[in-house]
């Protein structure tokens, strides 16, 4: 009888080695080790064995069963590993095919620049406030020391709004918010005001009738022009690079005195002179100055006690300088292919 056990063993191990797939293995298992399998049959034959040999026969069958079980487990692991390897091989893709990309939109570059600039000033302690675009002339001009019939008004070619009473305009600058803020608060004041402005102006590559400005205002005791220069320098260096040199030149705005134009050295030619800086080596980026005493008086502040400074800059110009945008019309008349290029804009 032991010969039969050996034969089963040899056959079973050979068949196991030949099984290449999980299903062949399952078949093998049920054939040999299943409830009605070969080993069960062998064990049943024990009744036909002389009683004295029965213990030895039983042990031999059991030993074979254990051996085959162990061999099966080992083989199963092998086959499973093989099969996984085959599956993975079969699943190979062309990794250079495009992925499934979620669509991402883009902030308008003007929004991004307003965030960047107001962010810089917020870190310097300035609060961001906004104000009306449709504004009384009294705020847009008179309170800012720009009288009616004064040539200074020509600087702001203005769009007027139909009004039965007080003169109303589309604000040509964000400066009226200087007045509104000072009327609503008491010093110390430190605010920046982003917003849309409008001018009665022909549109060309560098002029828009609709554009954005950011106004800044600081009023307190002991506010000086040296602070203005330092604050603007800190701002310009954060926006345009730490190596920027800065320059004030005398300029005239009726609501400041002294008034200046603030320039940085040209980052395109490093001050050598190029087309962007018109050969001067300097790029003027904003107008500024000490708040005119008359403006302080107009809001009920005592100019002997308080001093202040204000500045105003064009947002589109900053974007054009920072990213080399050639034509201001692209901002509002351009299309998505222009805007999409700002998807890498760093936003704080």
């Amino acid at each position, binding site marked *: 009888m032991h010969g039969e056990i050996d034969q089963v063993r040899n056959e079973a191990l050979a068949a196991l080695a030949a099984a290449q797939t999980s299903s062949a293995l399952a078949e093998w298992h049920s054939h040999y080790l299943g409830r009605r399998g070969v080993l069960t049959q062998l064990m049943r034959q024990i009744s036909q064995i002389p009683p004295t040999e029965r213990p030895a026969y039983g042990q031999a069958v059991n030993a074979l069963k254990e051996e085959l079980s162990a061999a099966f487990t080992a083989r199963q692991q092998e086959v499973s590993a093989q099969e996984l390897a085959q599956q993975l091989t079969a699943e190979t893709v062309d990794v250079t095919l495009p992925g499934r990309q979620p669509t991402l939109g883009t902030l308008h570059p003007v929004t991004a620049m307003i965030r960047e600039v107001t962010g810089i000033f917020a870190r310097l302690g300035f609060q961001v406030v906004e104000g009306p675009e449709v504004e009384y002339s009294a705020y847009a001009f008179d309170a800012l020391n720009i009288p009616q019939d004064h040539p200074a008004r020509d600087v702001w070619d203005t769009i007027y709004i139909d009004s039965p009473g007080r003169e109303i305009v589309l604000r040509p600058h964000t400066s009226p918010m200087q007045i509104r803020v000072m009327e609503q608060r008491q010093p110390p004041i430190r605010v920046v005001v982003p917003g849309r402005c409008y001018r009665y*102006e022909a*549109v060309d590559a560098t002029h828009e009738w609709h554009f954005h400005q950011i106004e800044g205002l600081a009023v307190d005791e002991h506010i*000086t022009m040296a602070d203005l220069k330092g604050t603007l320098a800190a701002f310009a260096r954060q926006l345009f690079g730490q190596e920027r040199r800065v320059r004030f030149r*005398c300029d005239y705005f*009726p609501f400041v005195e002294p008034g200046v134009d603030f320039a940085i050295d040209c980052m395109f030619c490093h001050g050598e002179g190029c087309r962007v800086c018109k050969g001067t080596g300097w790029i003027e980026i904003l107008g500024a100055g000490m708040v005119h005493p008359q403006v302080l008086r107009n809001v009920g502040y005592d100019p002997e006690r308080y001093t202040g400074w204000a500045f105003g800059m064009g947002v589109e110009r900053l974007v054009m300088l920072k990213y080399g945008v050639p034509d201001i019309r692209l901002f*509002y008349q351009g*299309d998505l292919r222009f805007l999409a290029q700002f998807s890498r804009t760093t936003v704080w």
Partner: protein
Amino acid sequence: MRVSVRWLRELVPTELSTEAIAERLTLAGLAVEAIERIGEHWEKIFTGLVEAIAPHPNADRLVLATVAAGTHRLTVVTGAPNIAVGQKVALALPGATLYDGHSIEPRLMTLTPSTIRGIRSEGMVCSEKELGLSDDHEGIMVLPDDTPVGVPLADVLGDEVLEIEITPNLVHAFSMIGIARELGALTKQPVNYPALAELAPCGDPTLVAIDASDLCARFVGVVIEGVEPVPSPWWMQQRLRVAGMRPINAIVDITNYVMLEYGQPQHAYDRARLHGGRLIARRARPGETLETIDHVHRTLDPDTLVIADEERAVGIAGIMGGRESEIDEETRVVLLETANFDMRSIRRTARAQRLRTEASARFERGLDPNLAWTATRRAVMLFQQLFPQSRITNVADVYPHPRFPRQIQVPRREIPRLLGTDFSDDEILDVLHRLELAPEVIQEGHEQVIVVTVPTYRSDLTIKADIVEEIARVIGYDKLPERLPVGQTVPVEVDPLLQLVRAVQDTLVGEGLTEIITYPMIDEAALRALDPAEREAPNRYGFFARPDLPLVRAVNPIRPEWSMMRPSLLPTLLRAGAEHLKFNAAVSIFEVGKVYLPRGGDQLPDERRVVGCLLAGVQHVRDLYHEERPVDFFDLKGTIEVLLPRVGALDVTFRPLAHPSLHPGRAAEIVVKGEPVGVLGEVHPLVAEHYGIERHHRVVAAEIDLSALLALGLEPISVHPVSRFQPIEQDFAIVVDEAVPAALVTEAVRLGAGPLATNVRLFDVYRGPAIPAGKKSLAFRVTFSALDQPLSDEQLASIRETIARVVHERVGGALRQ
């Protein structure tokens, strides 16, 4: 203002290069916008003498001119009609760079020797246009007789021109003398003032009169006899030309020259043509008309200040003279008007007449009345130089309220108080002296005060801050240190509306929409286009009801299509969408901007912050993974459903909406906490078409009033614990009538499922043979989870029963088994 550097250097001798002069002036407030170089191309152009002229053997209209220049003696073929023997001319040699005389645009070319009708031309005599001096190409330029021959033309005529921007406050620098004074103060050089005639009133004092003393502060009249309208001398013409003015004749040129030199406009009248031979400054009479020297007949309103003779207006004061009394060939006696007019009046009239002249630009800035006398003396000096035989027969000066220098007291500490830095007393006083401000230091109590005496020509200096600026700009702002403000720090608050705007922008960008900014102005046609029939503006603009009041309207719009402030983002979004669809198959855009709702009267409009979204074209361009399909209602609804909770609006519902501009079956009102805050829907195809979007495109738009949303209160983040037990998902299919909105069924399921349901998701809508006709089956997957225990089968069975009961009661639905 165009400033000849040659002339400037004559007034202020300086070693500085032209670039350095430009920089000094710029930093001090006289912005030099450009430096033009006259003659920079003139390397091979010399002065020459026309020695002989012979006819061209083969051409009637051409001549052969022999032109000598130094050792050269060239034969030049020319067709210039004005060439004559003995003339001094500009001679260009081969290789010279010239402007093309026949090109309208300035175009440079190089002169090559050429053969014209068989005769070789060895050079060229040049017109002003070819030299880049003017547009004159009528004939050759003839140089003055005393021009040396054979020298580079640049030595005779070359110049540099500073283009200086004169800001509105700078009347004192709106002249050569003014610029020279500035440069002198900046470079510590004295100014060489021109010679003035000695003059005193004589003859008839009523030669001139002021009949509107509020508009005319001074009127000086001088009668000069024995003059003729001959050409003015070359040097004067040249300076006028460089400044951009056209020489006319000596009489007119003198007045223009004095204006350039001193900044005081003057006008010369032919006295023979003046009724009564005298001039009066008065207001125009009702309906009075005048033909000005530009040949325009003008009707003058009664606020216009005119210069009149005894019968009629002969000039618009400070702006332009009249044609009838203009200097002409027969003029022999001139009445020279030098006056001071009210700046506001001149400005109003110049605007009303749409006539800005060199004179009005100066008067508008507020001239010094004392300048009128100086300018008169200067003009008389020039008349005497140019017309040695002329006689001054009458000088009248009406100046009822003479103006005197003012004093300004500047406390010494004001300088550091404003500037944040200080300069030495010596430096400060030196600057003030150089500016002719005659500073004196006095002691007032404990305080030092600098008293300056401001010459009347410095009308821009009125307060102590002006004097501080003078000191700073002359010493130089580069001396100002860079510091940060000191003082009390104020907590920086954040405006919640700005926070909401930022969150909306960021969320929409994350959802794949691109932000646009549009002009916020529209016209009536854009509003009518919101109505499918385009008959009249609909009763609703996007989210907003049509206001009862007229919209905010510009008096002087840039273009008619930008005449009104938009009452909704919808028109500008649609316009942008149509534009973008031309170049993009898939358009998904948004704008966060304002709408401007009228409040009536002279109140400012209600500027509300609104977000508008628009999807158009295809939802996704075709790629490996997506088939292309048109956008529809649910694409944008999903965007809004993500947006609103993200910014803190949790109680959001959508109600079917009948809206004039939207698809009648695909439009919804967006409701937060029971209040409408926006609209959403597919744009009515006819409305889209009115905006230029072709019918085959679907367009979905939404508009949400962020100001209203914020006013409703946005929920902060609230955190609740999560269960550690395995959640259980169960599906429920509810059969309801077709008409029952899904939102009601969902709400019923949620109610029935009770607090253990953490998520209710509608995942299928089925219509078909398995359910009765007129019904639909909505399949929900509900996730259950309890905090403290695993859910038992009994609990789930009980919940199932509750759901069945609630959907039956609420929406007449049946739970399919």
